[in-house]
């Protein structure tokens, strides 16, 4: 596997499976940050209006003044901590942008990780306008800022990649040669993706696999033949409408 081809992180679980984490890049995180900043600003305005409503110099006004300073502190330091420890594991801005905060080993975020990543926000914000954080995010493949590195966290996309859809329709064709597992996977992946390609492009790609299509019915397009092989590999043995070849031709083919 080539690590440079994309930014996906894989984390192995105790159950022996690998979880893919897709780290969110600078642009989407900056947007989430701006949304959060706007929410905090609105909230601060509400606090100022409600708590400043009484006016005057009475003890009530001073009590509200103290409460306002506490609100300021909470919004400043604890806003992300509180939201990231909820079940959504994201601040409202991140949630809107479809992001979630995870531990870098794929586990849900822990209280310690959350606290650290958000306290070190102070360092990421140095010397001006989140400069350290931005440089760190841009330099790293996994887009983690200094706080993420210390907390062992990563901001990732929440929504899963949608499954490739269904296998395209064609009559199954037994593979004429023995195919390795990798080749089988590639051919089946083609079968699933062919619906999203233009016929011309599909034919071009199918041509790359023409070595695996010897002795298949030549009057069908390469695409149809390759999809046919994919269907057979997938386990489809039924001959559909307009059968091209007889069942007898299949017997004796090596099943994978």
């Amino acid at each position: 596997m080539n690590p440079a081809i994309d930014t996906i992180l894989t984390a192995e679980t105790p159950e022996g499976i690998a979880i893919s984490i897709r780290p969110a890049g600078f642009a989407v995180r900056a947007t989430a940050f701006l949304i959060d900043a706007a929410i905090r600003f609105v909230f601060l305005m509400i606090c100022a209006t409600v708590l400043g409503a009484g006016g005057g110099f009475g003890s009530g006004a001073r009590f509200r003044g103290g409460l306002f300073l506490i609100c300021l502190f909470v919004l400043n330091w604890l806003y992300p901590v509180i939201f990231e420890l909820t079940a959504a594991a994201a601040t409202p801005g991140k949630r809107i942008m479809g992001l979630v905060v995870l531990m870098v080993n794929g586990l849900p975020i822990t209280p310690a990780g959350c606290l650290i990543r958000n306290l070190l926000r102070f360092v990421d914000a140095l010397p001006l306008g989140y400069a350290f954080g931005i440089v760190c995010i841009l330099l790293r493949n996994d887009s983690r800022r200094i706080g993420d590195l210390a907390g062992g966290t990563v901001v990732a996309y929440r929504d899963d990649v949608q499954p490739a859809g269904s296998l395209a329709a064609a009559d199954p064709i037994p593979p004429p040669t023995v195919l390795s597992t990798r080749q089988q996977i590639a051919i089946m992946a083609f079968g699933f993706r062919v619906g999203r390609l233009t016929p011309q492009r599909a034919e071009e790609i199918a041509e790359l696999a023409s070595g695996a299509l010897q002795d298949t019915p030549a009057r069908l397009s390469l695409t149809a033949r390759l999809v046919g092989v994919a269907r057979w590999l997938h386990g489809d043995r039924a001959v559909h409408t307009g059968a091209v070849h007889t069942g007898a031709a299949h017997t004796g083919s090596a099943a994978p």
Partner: protein
Amino acid sequence: MTALEFQTVHEKLWAELEQAVRLPERQLDPQRFLALYRTCCEHLALAEARGFASGIVERLSIVTARAHQIVYRQSDFGIARIARVLLNRFPTTVRAHRGYVALAALLFLGPALALGFAVYHKPDLILSIVDAGTATKFEKMYDPSNEVLGRLRDAGSNWMMFGFYIMNNITIAFQCFAAGILLGIGSVYFIAMNGAFGGAIAGYVASAGFGGTFFSFVATHSAFELTAIVLCGAAGLRIGRAVLLPGRLPRTTALELAAKDTSVIVFGSAVMLVIAAAIEAFWSSAAWLTPTAKYSGAAVCWILVALFFLRRPYAD
């Protein structure tokens, strides 16, 4: 077995798990859920090893990833857990970092004492730390003729000051910790600066003859406040050292471990600072309490804090 047969045989289990991960956590049957999760993990591993179609592998990856998040979610944020962290892990961790704590205390007390004595004997020196207006303000704050101490008469009530102390002091403590990642220099700077500032103000106010009100004012809450700031600084020094001298670990791993170890110190310190803010706003500032009462309270608080960190911890 072909992919299609594999899917036909196990389809029901996959669908059941897919439905279960969408349910609220409370409605799940834990045993059934865990069994389903493990089975689907097995199926995923099998499907990958056999090179089954991407549709099956992707579907199983998605549902197992979802279930993994649910299975391993730490949902125990109860009072009991927080109390356990604060009462056991916090002092234990502080003791385990006693070298850093001693260094941070030295970095704080050194400049504080040096500037305190210097400013006491030569009050003009205060102007190299703060401007004249601030110096006068501090002098007025501790004038014994005030009915409340530690603030200007028009600054606001106890509640106002409580809010201010929380915001100001916890921010300072958090900075002492976070800045440590800059090779420890940030922590050294913030600890020494705060020490120097406090020392200079103390020296200046004492030289003006208001030492009695000033020291009785700070004695009680400083048990929590100064300790907490020194502890946060010590935590900052630890993460600074991890970055500077990671030893045999990769730098990021050393940093991650140091931050994980010390996060409980920062959490505990924040709680101590809330206590300090309450004492400072409601007890320390009360002019009707005699200095004797305040010093007695201070002695109790210092002893409590010392005992808290030195006592033998309960079994976790």
